[in-house]
């Protein structure tokens, strides 16, 4: 098996595990009130997942995943989280392009990488465009969230953290502005890194250092945002930018981690907040 094919197969395996975990964790969090549509979606996702991992009729299975995610986007619109659109796009790519044909495989790998670049770049551009990171306003506002507070409090004086956490987000509250230079550096580093790493992932000469830096950045942001399922999916896609097929070695750790998330939802393990 060629390196590119090996990488894509590994990414497909992680992708399938993430989608199935999404449906399971969502269903388990409201098992008693699970409606017929969500129950059916859970069953379909599980069957598709089993079929994909068994390796039979993969493109048909991914067409099924694309249809499932399209249904989800449609029925939950406009509440749908962005990762669902991303999953729909990935699944459609896997359905349209044949990994076993060299030309299509090359296009598939490039398309996956390009998607990563687009998502990362626009994540930064959106933050810049709306202006809530230039003076730390968004992060200051987000201190009401425990995970943001734990990560960012060391960058603020006790007076400033006291002032910012005393606000309730009501009209008239503020100013959500900070004077701490370290806080402002972190706030601006977020969009700067996203917008810088994205083009660096494009060029072969800088791709290697860029994917490592992007993975480190992703881990740091996930410790705060706790969007674990999106984080795993996007992090795995970043591994497609590596020269080697390191992503193959990520399958089992990812599977174990996802299993732990399901066990948390089942109540077997202590609950940790994640989205």
């Amino acid at each position: 098996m060629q390196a590119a094919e090996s990488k894509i197969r590994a990414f497909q395996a992680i992708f399938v595990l993430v989608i199935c975990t999404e449906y399971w964790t969502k269903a388990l969090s409201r098992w008693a009130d699970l409606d017929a549509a969500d129950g059916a979606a859970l069953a379909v996702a599980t069957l598709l997942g089993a079929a994909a991992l068994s390796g039979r009729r993969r493109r048909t299975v991914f067409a099924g995943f694309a249809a499932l995610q399209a249904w989800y986007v449609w029925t939950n619109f406009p509440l749908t989280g962005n990762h669902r659109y991303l999953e729909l796009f990935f699944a459609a790519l896997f359905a349209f392009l044949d990994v076993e044909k060299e030309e299509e495989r090359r296009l598939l790998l490039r398309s996956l990488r390009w998607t990563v670049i687009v998502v990362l770049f626009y994540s930064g551009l959106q933050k810049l465009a709306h202006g809530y990171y230039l003076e730390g306003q968004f992060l200051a506002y987000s201190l009401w969230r425990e995970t943001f507070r734990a990560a960012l409090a060391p960058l603020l004086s006790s007076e400033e953290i006291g002032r910012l956490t005393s606000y309730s987000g009501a009209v008239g509250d503020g100013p959500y502005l900070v004077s701490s230079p370290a806080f402002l550096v972190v706030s601006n580093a977020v969009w700067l890194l996203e917008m810088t790493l994205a083009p660096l992932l494009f060029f072969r000469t800088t791709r290697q250092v860029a994917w490592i830096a992007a993975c480190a950045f992703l881990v740091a942001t996930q410790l705060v945002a706790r969007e674990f399922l999106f984080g795993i999916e996007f992090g795995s896609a970043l591994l497609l930018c590596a020269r080697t097929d390191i992503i193959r070695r990520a399958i089992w750790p990812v599977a174990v981690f996802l299993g732990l998330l399901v066990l948390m939802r089942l109540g077997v393990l202590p609950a940790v907040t994640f989205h």
Partner: protein
Amino acid sequence: MVHAALVALTVWPAVHIGLVKLYDVNPWKLAGWGMYSAPQLPSYVQITCLTPDSVGSYELGSLRPELEPRLEEFLLLRRHLGRLVEPDELARALLDYYPAIDGVDIAVVEPVLNAATGMIEEQSATYEYRRRLPFPGSV
């Protein structure tokens, strides 16, 4: 086909930023990749009913339970699609439910974090609906 999809994937977020700027569409939603780029603050409505008698107008303090789903649906859509969504259906339901009133004014009040001042401020848009005039009417 794949190339067209990649072009759409690349161009859409730029359009999305424009929609956020022009219509207050939620940057977190609709595949614009703007998660965590702006706070999401809940909006609410103030409803004023207009009467043909000497009362003139009165503020509707609470909605009847039958109308609550319409209000919730509107607020949910408004929160994510911004000013692309207007309270036409809610107004229609109110006019149907209260046959004695001549019209309703629906003020949508949306708290926003002012990026320049860092203060949470209120912005509102009022939509006027009159029984004898075509929908919608906003000021």
